[in-house]
């Protein structure tokens, strides 16, 4: 008898399919049971821990907590402040998207209706409004005995908004107003019950005393009242280009480099702080420690430092404003008394973002950022590193000195610089300039170390003649350049690696002779 016949095959197939079907049925049932067992954790009803990311961090300063009723507890104040800011955040988001998400959580039943009406009206009329508030100075007026009700006055709230209709920008408006707010504690949330816009209060004049080493008068920068001409260089350690404060941060390397710089008769360096690298709105303490070490070394070597903030940051949207403000605030206020810092350079070549991010956006961001920096550090100068002399007149009235980057033909140097000196009546710094010594197939064997030397020789002659402040690009050739900097193609990248006065083996190139004057 044949062992394998049709009948046996059928039997086997039948049993097998039965097993397979059973397995899948069991799995399916298990999934259904599993699904039915999931759901919100019961404790979530109590809103005990509403985890939140930092999405909205305008400057908040409680001017007074005194009130005739109950004493405010620190813990409650933190919760109240957070929920109050969220109430602004959800309102701003609602006006931007015409969507009422989140409003239930931060406005009481009666109050939220007003916002719903606004949203409905704006949706019907295709109006969207991007908003952010910059500053809040709440003053507690009343905190009830049972801890369920507060009233406070939020003085001089600065609101900045961009108004669109039919997706077209109508205008941007900055408005200052005082708000009187009543909030109730309802199921774990402080919710807005009453809200009242009022006339702003009279601004109190700032009385902070400044303690400046570097000052500016006319076209001249002064150091302790002595005229100071910046003879500087853009600096990255050789092996950590665009990553000064990264893993390879080494005190000795930097000290040795400073020695080279000092000996080369330079007096200033320019460094870069990356927004993401330093932790965005929540500054990473370790990075601050490294920055302090760096600045202390510079101070010891008697070098002035121009610190460029917001490197690799290119989102200027209103949603992000308050976060960038906190970033800058933490850095500049920490180092406001540091003697090594000459100036804060708010952003490197922001005009390159004009096209993609909107000139208006970029300029208003810079404008407000200047205010934040000056408020937190009145001691140091402020500038912006524009990529050419034409754009360098933007916001010139707010700058202490004008910085621009010169990569044009040498013959234009005097014209461009003098034009800026004349039009802005402020000191002008040629904050970047240089040529690569790279001569390869990607630039038709155009550059060479000799040509680079000649270039710097000529430039230094102009600087000496006109007493211009300059900062060359850059001390070292870099073995690695990140893609974000120049681009990913070899003809873009290779060029960028060879701008140094010292090559990547640590040997001085001929140009080194003309590093200063």
């Amino acid at each position, binding site marked *: 008898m044949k062992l394998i016949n049709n009948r046996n095959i059928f039997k086997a197939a039948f049993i097998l399919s039965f097993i397979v079907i059973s397995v899948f049925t069991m799995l399916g049932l298990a999934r259904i049971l599993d699904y039915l067992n999931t759901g919100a954790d019961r404790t979530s009803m109590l809103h005990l821990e509403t985890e939140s990311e930092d999405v909205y961090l305008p400057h908040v300063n409680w001017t007074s907590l005194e009130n005739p*009723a109950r004493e405010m507890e620190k813990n409650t104040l933190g919760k109240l402040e957070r929920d109050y800011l969220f109430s602004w955040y959800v309102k701003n988001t609602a*006006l931007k998207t015409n969507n009422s998400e989140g409003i239930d959580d931060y406005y009481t039943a*009666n*109050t939220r209706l*007003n*916002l719903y*009406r*606004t*949203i409905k*009206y*704006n949706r019907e*009329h295709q*109006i969207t*409004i991007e*908003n952010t508030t910059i500053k809040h100075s709440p003053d507690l*007026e*009343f905190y*009830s*005995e*049972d801890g*369920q*009700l507060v*009233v406070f*006055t939020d003085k001089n709230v600065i*609101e900045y*908004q961009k*108004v669109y*209709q039919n997706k077209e*920008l*109508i*205008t941007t*408006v900055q*408005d200052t*107003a005082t*708000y*009187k707010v*009543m909030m*109730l504690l309802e199921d774990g949330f402080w919710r807005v*019950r*009453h*809200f*009242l*816009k*009022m*006339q702003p209060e009279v601004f109190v004049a700032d009385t902070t005393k400044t303690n400046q080493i570097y000052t500016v008068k006319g076209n001249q920068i002064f150091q302790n009242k002595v005229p100071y001409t910046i003879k500087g260089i853009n600096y990255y350690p050789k092996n950590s280009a665009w990553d000064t404060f990264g893993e390879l941060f080494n005190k000795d390397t930097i000290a040795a480099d400073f020695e080279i710089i000092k000996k080369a008769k330079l007096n200033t360096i320019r460094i870069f702080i990356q927004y993401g690298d330093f932790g965005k709105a929540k500054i990473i303490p370790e990075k601050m420690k490294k920055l302090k070490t760096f600045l202390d070394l510079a101070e010891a070597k008697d070098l002035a430092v121009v610190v460029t903030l917001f490197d690799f940051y290119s989102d200027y949207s209103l949603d992000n404003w308050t976060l960038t403000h906190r970033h800058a605030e933490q850095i500049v206020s920490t180092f406001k008394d540091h003697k090594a810092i000459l100036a804060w350079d708010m952003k490197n070549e922001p005009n390159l973002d004009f096209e993609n991010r909107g000139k208006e956006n970029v300029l208003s961001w810079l404008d407000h950022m200047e205010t934040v920096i000056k408020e937190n550090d009145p001691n140091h100068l402020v500038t912006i590193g524009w990529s050419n002399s034409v754009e360098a007149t933007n916001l010139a009235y707010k700058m202490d000195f004008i910085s621009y980057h010169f990569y044009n033909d040498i013959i234009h140097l005097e014209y461009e610089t003098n034009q800026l000196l004349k039009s802005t009546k402020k000191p002008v710094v040629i904050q970047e300039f240089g040529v690569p010594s790279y001569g390869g197939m990607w630039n038709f064997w155009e550059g060479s170390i000799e040509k680079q030397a000649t270039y710097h020789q000529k430039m230094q002659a102009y600087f000496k003649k006109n007493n211009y402040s300059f900062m060359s690009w850059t001390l070292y050739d870099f073995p690695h350049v990140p893609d974000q900097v120049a681009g990913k193609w070899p003809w873009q990248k290779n060029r960028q690696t060879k701008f140094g006065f010292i090559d990547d083996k640590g040997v001085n190139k001929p140009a080194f002779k003309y590093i200063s004057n």
Partner: protein
Amino acid sequence: MIKKALYSVLPVLFLFLFVFAASKIDDERTSFRLQTTQDSFVAGKPIALTFSTPSLSANPQLFLIHTYGKTVLNTENNNGKLVYKIPAIYRSKTGVVSWYLIQNQEKIMSGNFKIVPNDATPTILENYLGPPSLLTGTEHFTMMVAIPTDSYDNPKQDNTTVVIKDQFLEDITTTERKTDYFIAWKNIYSRTKSGKMLISTACNATDSKEFETEIQPSPGEDFKISFSRPHKFADGNQITTLETSTILDKYGNIVGDGTLVTFQVTTQNNILLKTYAATINGIAIGQLLHPDHKDTYTVKGYVTGIAESKPVRIDYNPLIDHFTYKFTEKNRQITVGPLRSFMKQIVPDGIKVELKILYKKELIETKIIETQKGIATFYLLPPFYKKSEYQFEITTLGVTQKTEIKKYETN
């Protein structure tokens, strides 16, 4: 042919001309004047801002920032007159409204007006009372917060009078308070008597509902305890009842029902026993089982952390001074009893009898049996007790008797 070409070109030409002309007019900085002089409006009433301009075509937009929103208004240029009607949703809520006149993305004019609460509409009162219960005394208070609004839910202007009333027993107090920061409020202090206090508010013609706050008695003061029992014998069966005096707070109010009293008992041998009871009408009644031997209990009552009593002493007399026992079945069976109580009655079942088995004055084992009908019987099984002699110590109802040495057969 030329004519035909002309026909097709001319409209295009005119269109261009028109566009240029229009842009020319738009480009010039037209001046605007606000004709509306009123800068304060009542909520719910129509509001319109009227501007005049020499331009007959300029048509700027009005951007509004209101307490509860922001929006853009458009209107028609009617012979140099522009009327912006404020939508109803922005008219009914109070506050300063900032406006910005915008043309070609430029802010040409700005200003603001104010909307005040509509006092002609019925007042609505919102009240918050807390905490909802108080202790008696003079330092405790509950806070009444009243927020009077108009019918559009706008808080009334500052200095609106709110009357806050409270009633306690015969006593009715009425106070006038002015609103400030939306609210009028008052601390209503507790009384020395416990009970219910009613609070209400009124503003203009509107009266609130009544709010209740409970004045609870303060924590109790020290108290006394007493005891009672069926008899004073230590029979291990009856119950002694411990009773506190009425526990009062310092103002003479009976403490709240359910106040837990701990009765702590110290025996003669310094062993601690505890029994608990909650108060009803200020009195807590605890129960304590009689000991089964002569003892003296010292009992003290506590309301933990708050109040205590002075100790009382309770003496328990012994039930018997001696008992009988007998050996049978070759001394293997020991029968204790019958145990007789104070009236010669058989003791209740369950009296503990302890038998200590000694061999040459050394304790080998302790057996415990409870009496049945006054008798407890021990049996020493030969396989377990193989020695030739044993002595016994029998204890019951606090009395210990030692037997003589008994001889046993051994195989």
